């Protein structure tokens, strides 16, 4: 794995092309440029290893979530919000063959030349255009014989395999956030190009009649053939008035179905022993995820992670937090220990280039169990959060 710089004289055009042609509408975060000046190049062997590990992880996750859905007595330790637990009981009609299951596992290279994962984005992973169009733009800009995996192609094909042609897909997101819309717009345009009717609405623009999703969005009223949800479940539960209950038992194909909640919580590892006692193998997860404990069992060398954390926020990596932020996290952990886990800290191996060191978070997608491409971010700090830069991932062919 290496970083290859975008030539300085080409970077400005590359950035503008990424904005206009690759749905990168958020190229700045405070003072940080969120589009890397590098391309992440994987060797083919590394790519194959990641495909293997990702698909093994996914197999374990899918088996675990199906088991948990049929054995809800075991989910107590996940400490899911009460509002969600009530609805989860309705998911008994879940049939994985009717829905599209999308996940992204976040890999990190470590100093002992191995991989660790920090989480699975089980519920609403993002970064779609960055994993589809940006690598192609990078290859064109570099003019090299690299290739990339087109996540958008794989995802759109999976959707079209399960949804009738010309069907209506609602892309459910937080409509006030342009950074959510850019993700939805990319895949919506992709589905439109395949003949689907893509509509964009909020979670409460769907109602459910006889378990069928119906759009009440002004000017787009009617039956919906697929729900593509980008509003996280833990936000969904706070929407008033409560119209979101139907997401849990809908017969309308969904990506993702709320079954995603079991692996989304960072407390998922706390019930692995129960899963293993019931013959659900968690070997790959155990190999790749650092040891995870209840907060009360915190040891030296561990960090706190919020159970419902996103984009690396509120993780207590001391050297990556301001003192104020660190103390705020610790205070919250003490107040709400069940909202966190303690996880053994791994040492990320940065890549050195241009007298700087960059830490990598390499997200590896699965769509219906198959590896489906990469979304990566880099940062000079070991915590990859909103300040990190998106970086396209390409693959270098083996020399013959």
């Amino acid at each position: 794995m290496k970083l290859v710089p975008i030539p300085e004289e080409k970077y400005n055009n590359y950035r503008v092309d990424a904005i206009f042609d690759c749905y990168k509408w958020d190229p700045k975060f405070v003072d940080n440029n969120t589009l890397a000046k590098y391309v992440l190049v994987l060797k083919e062997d590394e790519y194959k290893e990641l495909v293997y590990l990702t698909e093994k992880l996914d197999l374990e996750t899918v088996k675990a979530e199906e088991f948990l859905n049929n054995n809800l007595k075991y989910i107590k330790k996940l400490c899911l919000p009460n509002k969600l637990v009530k609805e989860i009981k309705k998911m008994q009609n879940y049939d994985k063959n009717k829905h599209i299951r999308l996940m992204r596992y976040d890999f990190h290279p470590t100093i002992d030349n191995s991989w660790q994962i920090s989480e699975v984005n089980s519920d609403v992973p993002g970064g779609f255009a960055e994993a589809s169009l940006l690598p192609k733009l990078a290859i064109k800009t570099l003019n090299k014989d690299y290739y990339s995996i087109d996540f958008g192609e794989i995802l759109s094909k999976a959707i079209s395999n399960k949804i009738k042609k010309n069907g209506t897909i609602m892309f459910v997101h937080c409509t006030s956030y342009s950074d959510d819309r850019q993700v939805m717009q990319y895949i919506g345009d992709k589905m439109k190009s395949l003949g689907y009717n893509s509509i964009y609405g909020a979670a409460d623009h769907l109602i459910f009649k006889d378990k069928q999703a119906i759009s009440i969005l002004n000017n787009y009223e009617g039956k919906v053939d697929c729900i593509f949800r980008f509003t996280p479940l833990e936000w969904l539960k706070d929407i008033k008035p409560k119209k979101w209950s139907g997401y849990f038992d809908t017969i309308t194909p969904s990506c993702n179905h709320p079954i995603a909640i079991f692996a989304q919580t960072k407390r998922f590892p706390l019930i692995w022993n129960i899963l293993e006692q019931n013959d659900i193998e968690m070997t790959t997860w155990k190999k790749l995820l650092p040891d995870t404990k209840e907060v009360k069992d915190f040891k030296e060398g561990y960090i706190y992670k919020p159970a419902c954390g996103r984009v690396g926020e509120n993780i207590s990596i001391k050297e990556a937090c301001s003192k104020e932020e660190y103390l705020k996290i610790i205070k919250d952990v003490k107040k709400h220990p069940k909202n966190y886990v303690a996880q053994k800290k791994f040492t990320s191996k940065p890549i050195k280039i241009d007298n700087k060191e960059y830490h990598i978070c390499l997200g590896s997608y699965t769509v219906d169990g198959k590896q489906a491409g990469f979304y990566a971010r880099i940062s000079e700090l070991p915590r990859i959060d909103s300040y990190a830069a998106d970086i396209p991932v390409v693959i270098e062919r083996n020399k013959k």
Partner: protein
Amino acid sequence: MTNKEIYLKWAPYNIKWSSWVRPVPFIYLDSNVNEFIDYKIPHINYLKEVLPNTAIIIDINGVDSIKEGIALNKIGYYPIPIFNGTSSNKAMSTTNNKVIEPLLVWGAFELKEIKDDALPVFLLDENRLNRYKTDCGIFDNSWDVYYQDLPSSKYFLNNGIDKILVRANKINKDLNKILYDYQKENIKILFTNGFEPIKEIKIKKIKYIN
């Protein structure tokens, strides 16, 4: 001009502050919005010349915000649109984010050359906070400005800016939160409603959940 070319007029390469221009309204820019718009450049009552060491945030309705930005550009400022609202397509919506689009096209032609040492004027639309829904089918494309949409206090101070002038009818809640943090980092906050003289104000901490 293409959308990219219009964007690049507002965000030219290698000019300080240009990377803060938010691309969102430029992506599907439509210069043929059916609104009557008076393109007259307004007279600035509160400022005759560039205020040293001072950045400006204009938070009035989007159309006037762009026009005032252009007026300030004529005396040496760099107007930076940070509009971030999305389109509702054909659904009825809470906010008309498209009304600014012909102004961005017009402004691209009006903008004078931007010097690298020009002080920034960040342009906001106060209508972003219109989120009242008369019907549950309405598309809520209201939006907030967040700390990540603006430079950090450290960046301002390192670039010689220790004052921020807010030109608005009032300090809106989302902006209040950002200004409060700037104030904590020793940046002075000034205010004008556009007619009254500029005065220093103290920003109070308010609890704000969008």
